[in-house]
């Protein structure tokens, strides 16, 4: 299955992936309107320290602890993609307690949010990868 993979050595720490993620999931067509004066809450996050940076997003694990532990059945697997039903989520944060990568986070709505590979927004394919200028994140089979 195609997943988002990180080439850490190529990451510039520019954070464009975070902006593309926030834009893609905003539902707004114009990138400037979607992001101007907005405190973004992207589903992918850059970690950085002097000399090192990399993006972290859902790994779409084969044995997802978040899905197995979800108390509502909101998190589930569709064709290998870990997706979730925000209507069912009550924001208990068991998934945040479970994810080994720290890739699930609170959303503004009180539920959680996570990367769904842009399958539910108008991009249809990971916007973070499209926005990365240096192939530090790629969407491919490995």
């Amino acid at each position, binding site marked *: 299955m195609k997943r988002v993979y990180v080439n850490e050595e190529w990451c510039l720490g520019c954070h464009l992936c975070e902006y593309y993620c926030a834009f893609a999931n905003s539902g707004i067509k114009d990138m400037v309107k979607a992001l101007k004066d907005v405190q973004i809450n992207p589903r992918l996050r850059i970690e950085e320290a002097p000399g090192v940076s990399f*993006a972290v997003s859902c790994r779409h694990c084969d044995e997802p602890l978040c899905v197995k532990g979800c108390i509502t059945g909101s998190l589930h697997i569709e064709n290998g993609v870990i997706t979730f039903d925000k209507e069912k989520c009550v924001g208990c944060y068991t998934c945040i307690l479970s994810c080994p990568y720290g890739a699930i986070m609170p959303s503004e709505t009180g539920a959680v949010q996570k990367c769904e590979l842009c399958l539910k927004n108008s991009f249809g394919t990971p916007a973070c990868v499209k926005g990365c200028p240096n192939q530090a994140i790629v969407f491919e089979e490995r």
Partner: protein
Amino acid sequence: MQYVIIGNSAAGVGCVEGIRQADKTGKITVLSSEPYHTYSRPLISYLLYGKTDEEKMKYRRASFYEDNGCEFLPGRTAAAIDPKGKTVRLTDGTEIPYDRLMVATGSRPFVPPIPGLDRVSSQFTFMSLDDARALEKELSPDKRVLIMGAGLIGLKCAEGIAAKVGELTVVDLAPHILPSILDPDAAALVQKHIEGHNIRFILSDSVKEFSGNAAVLASGKTVPFDILIVAVGVRPNTALISDAGGAVNRGIVTDDACRTTLPDIFAAGDCTESRDAVSGEHRVLALLPNAYMQGECAGINMAGGTAVYDKAIAMNAIGFFGLHVLTAGSYQGEDYISAGEETYKRLISSDNRLRGFILVGDVARAGIYTNLIKNKTALSSIDYDLIKERPQLLAFSRKERKIMLGGAAE
């Protein structure tokens, strides 16, 4: 192959999904005492709080049994197992044969024998959808509620109903709230937050007797109430296995493959004991994620596959009125503590391993800590000082990150 599953909650559902990973065609019969589609038990407090409804509470979609080729028998209760004849007898006398059996019977509320309790007119426990429905009917702004028990169930119930009643008092023998998962400092922080929402606590005290609709406490205080909720603990439902001659301690004894001591009979969830991966002790770890994963592991093994569930740890995600609390593991060891106005963090380590944590308020990315505990990661192999500040993958080696994020083989 004929599979029978007694129980229709997380462990039972996990078992169905485990069986179907290894056997697409064997017949599965699911017995459920409660006459409902599988629903998430912990959501009953969210139901009263108004954060979910009975439709959204369904733990799996409406077509779950059909999609998985299950014969679903709602409202049917197992009375006895005949391990020699390999049949389950139901309370209505029906006998169902099995090749492999799953016992996922959960637990029941413990109601202590307190003088006068039998004469309390309006009393509830808080475990099932029926409990929540019955309690909801009684709630009104003029009612005074007494909850016995400041544990997970009692306090989630309190959160669920606080806005719908006049007065709400929680009494517990322990000196602080949530004694099974919090230390006194974290508990004080959470208690203060909860007290801002129409909830009053009486701690280090207990109900000695009931005098009509008033509780007389050991301290001599009297607490009058209109509604009593008993949430002092639960007991595993183990009788089916012990009556059939299987080993039972506090819970049903199971091995790492979720087998009981009886041939072809497996057990999972709140009715069982499993090995705590942190302490090595066998104990009842009554937690939904644990129940699901035990059930799934059992299901795979029942269907002829091979699975081991040896990473059970105590872990709890709970929140009250927007304040989140995440805890895991055990609290014996060396402490790292950092506290703020509405945040508290305690990490416990020993022998170069993270053993447990308590996080209140700031809980982001806690799973990174959880997995250090589960995987028994040597703290000397990561930057522990960095990860103590906050959970982050920067604390791991570049090589380790290549495995985690780059898909490199381990």
